[in-house]
């Protein structure tokens, strides 16, 4: 069966059981991956999957299912079992009927046939990344290169029918000049034309070389310049906190702040369903509603939460096309570009740090947004407007609401970020968070 036949069979089987609502998405995907370390390929992977996602509702009872058996018999059995479980589930006050379509979808999918049909190409690209990192100063290089293609087909009892293809190619490369000096490089694109393996390798190698012989940094409060990777890691939490599900569940630092000034004037963040030449993204959400552009923060003001039809009804709002049938979620976060170059930002810092990468961001209290994160790879001390020396073994501790108010400059160039630590793709600029009398700056500490 092809994907359209699968989703139609799901609806037919669900209707046989007289459910009130049913929706199904069939996802057919293929992923090729090359992993490498110590300048050598460690494994090549090839993953092909067809997964069928199903939603049914009856008598205000709701159920979601996922099956990897897309045969006629498999679908029929799974739907029967899903409806049976649904009927056994208690009814919910939150039940909201699926939206009525059909809808019109706009925006060209981010799809490049060359990525889907050219797995052997990856081996050469991985080699280019490794070679360029070594030429730039690395001794050892590790990373992963992934080419992903999928096709999503949706149908619902609300009259929704849609199908779209997408591709992404992602390179995450880490170069080591010695055991205490590493650099990180990324290239993420939906087409080969926008992909730059050599550049990612070169960046990683250059940072690794610059990170040699790092110094310790005294604990204290510093101005911090965050690379696009760091800014994306921290600010993706703004996207999740903007989900109406997070707000209603009590773990959003954006709760009760709609319409209020929560950030500096120069900061605007939108969620965008399908950005041209962007990564992933969708023209329809899991309810079949067209995705679009939703302003989360506009010139410092919290404008919208992200909704599906259920949360929208509860918040007396409209769906923003961000379903998740349980929790609405961001597709792509777009931070409006600023007008600063990285050189200008560094020049304006009297005493601060420049962090190129980080990981392990964790919250003490997700409601307050208090967190810490661990810089990794190259980081530098900035003194009197110039990079002075590399630093290591530091940790950043702050709160996101406080940080939103301390953004002093935003880069004019943006870079797509998606990797192991950043799951929401983002075209992200460099961010400069500045301390001030009103706003104590980011704390930096080291283990004792």
């Amino acid at each position: 069966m092809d994907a359209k036949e699968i989703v139609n069979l799901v609806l037919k089987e669900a209707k046989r059981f007289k459910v009130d609502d049913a929706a199904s998405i069939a996802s057919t995907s293929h992923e090729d991956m090359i992993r490498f370390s110590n300048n050598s390929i460690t494994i090549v992977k090839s993953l092909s999957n067809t997964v069928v996602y199903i939603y049914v509702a009856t008598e205000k009872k709701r159920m979601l299912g996922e099956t990897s058996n897309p045969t006629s018999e498999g679908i029929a059995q799974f739907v029967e079992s899903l409806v049976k479980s649904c009927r056994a589930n208690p009814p919910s006050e939150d039940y909201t009927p699926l939206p009525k379509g059909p809808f019109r979808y706009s925006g060209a999918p981010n799809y490049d046939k060359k990525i889907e049909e050219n797995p052997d190409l990856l081996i050469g690209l991985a080699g280019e990344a490794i070679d360029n990192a070594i030429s730039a100063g690395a001794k050892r290089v590790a990373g992963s290169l992934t080419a992903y293609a999928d096709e999503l087909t949706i149908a619902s009892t609300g009259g929704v029918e849609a199908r779209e293809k997408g591709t992404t190619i992602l390179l995450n490369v880490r170069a080591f000049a010695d055991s205490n000096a590493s650099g990180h490089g990324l290239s993420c694109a939906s087409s080969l034309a926008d992909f730059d393996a050599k550049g990612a390798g070169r960046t990683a190698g250059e940072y690794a070389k610059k990170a040699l012989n790092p110094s310790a940094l005294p604990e204290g409060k510093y101005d911090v310049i965050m690379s696009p990777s760091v800014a994306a890691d921290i600010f993706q939490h703004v996207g999740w906190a903007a989900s109406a599900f997070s707000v209603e569940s009590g773990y959003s630092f954006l709760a009760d702040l709609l319409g209020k000034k929560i950030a500096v004037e120069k900061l605007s963040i939108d969620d965008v369903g399908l950005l041209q030449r962007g990564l992933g993204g969708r023209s329809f959400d899991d309810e079949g509603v067209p995705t679009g552009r939703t302003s989360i923060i506009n010139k410092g003001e919290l404008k919208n939460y992200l909704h599906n039809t259920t949360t929208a009804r509860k918040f007396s709002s409209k769906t923003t096309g961000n379903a998740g049938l349980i929790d609405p979620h961001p597709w792509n976060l777009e931070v409006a570009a600023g007008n600063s170059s990285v050189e200008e930002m560094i020049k304006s810092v009297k005493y601060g740090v420049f962090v190129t990468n980080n990981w392990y961001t964790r919250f003490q209290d997700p409601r307050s947004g208090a967190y810490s994160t661990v810089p990794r790879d190259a980081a530098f001390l900035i003194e009197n407007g110039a990079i002075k020396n590399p630093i290591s073994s530091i940790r950043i501790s702050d709160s996101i609401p406080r940080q939103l108010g301390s953004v002093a400059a935003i880069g004019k160039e943006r870079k797509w970020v998606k990797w192991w630590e950043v799951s929401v793709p983002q075209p992200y600029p460099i961010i400069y968070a500045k301390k001030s009398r009103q706003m104590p700056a980011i704390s930096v500490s080291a283990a004792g």
Partner: protein
Amino acid sequence: MDERLARFAVDRARALGAQYAEARIQRNLESEAILRNGNPEPAVIGDALGIGIRVLVNGSLAFSATNMLTEESVRSLVEGAIKRAKSAAKFTKQKIGFSNEKSHQAKWSAPEKKNIENVGIEDLARVLKELDNSIKNGKNGVEFPNRLFFLRTMLVERIYVNSDGANLRGRVPRLQFHSYISAKHSGKTSTVTIPAGYAQLGESGGWEVLDRFDLFEYVPKTAEELADVVKAEKKPPTETVDVILGPEVSGLVSHESCGHPGEADRILGREGAQAGESYLKSNDIGYKIGSEQAFVSDDPTLPNSMGFYLYDEEGVPARKRALISKGIISSFLHNRESAHDLNTSSNASARSVRYDREPIVRMANTYIEPGDYTFEGMVKDVKLGVYIKSFMEWNIDDKRLNQRYVGLESYLIEKGEVKHHVKDPILEITTPKLYGSLDARGNDLKFMGATCGKGDPMQGIPVWTGGPHVRLRNIRVAAR
């Protein structure tokens, strides 16, 4: 699940020139009820079934997977894997090999009294409703306006065969609970998890595990403790003091700063770009990292454990591994690939979370070994200190050397007595300092469930983290 298909994949790979081949047919069945503020969210059922194969060709390794379980599809899968491995061979500068291991044929399963497959969504939903009723009116003057509960059954079944002659069939049922609770007091709202630290109650076994969780006692009691925690305003002492870590914290410590850096694939650099490397080098067996009181082990065979297995995903029989003994690094965690590189044997650490994920080196149930101390005996000798019973925020660098744990339920210790709550004490410490300061281990070993992340694509795998109360001497504590 058709074993013939797995055997067909292995035979076909060998016929096409693979020096080694394995096939794993795996099914993951899950069902989960979610209750939010007293209202059911859509319940979730998942059924993932497919086949994953690994082939080694001319020292080049390929992994391929599909959910299309037909002979034609598997034939194509094998041919593609062989082709990719051959293409990659010329760029595989360090040839890959597997350690020689004895082959086993066995059928095994985690003990299960009440079949997990007979648990319906309505059973899970009923438990969550009762839990919500038990705390929805608040405790000790603190409201809980937001309550989000999850209860999930999981069942993993797999067939594993390889070209060395292994033939294994395994089954592990599990039950898992976690929640988010907001606590409102004096106009301020804080959100934490129960269990704290984004952890879980998790065990392998059937529906009888629910009785062992004792949720109807555990959740209201923990919520009551939380009500006191959110009222805490006093800061911890910030000078050098003694610190007692509760089992929830010591268990995480064992996982983060002993288990992870002891994974041999990290030591060898294979995870360098994602999960990171290690402060340990490949010749560090025998290296002194801590005091004579530092003992850390990992044991997949622990009954009822979240990380339970009897054979790993390369067919090697599971056994207990001593990672630190008397402060000395005593072994690494190995799969067959890392064991081959370091000229040793696998200690059965290869795990994979689904059919479409490669088996890599993982922990199972990592814990600090218990000692002889009672908690009271441990506190008695502390003049000034902090007792960190539970935590929320934590992180560690990617070599596993520089770590931080921020206390949730925490107390001041003064003149041998536990006093009042302190707010958010921060323990930021290096791994040698932590294990070097350890001078007492309690007799109260306890385990928590957790999902450990590693690999690319990411594999979140069920584990236990465990430990008793432990005492660290002369530690610098900070306040937020």
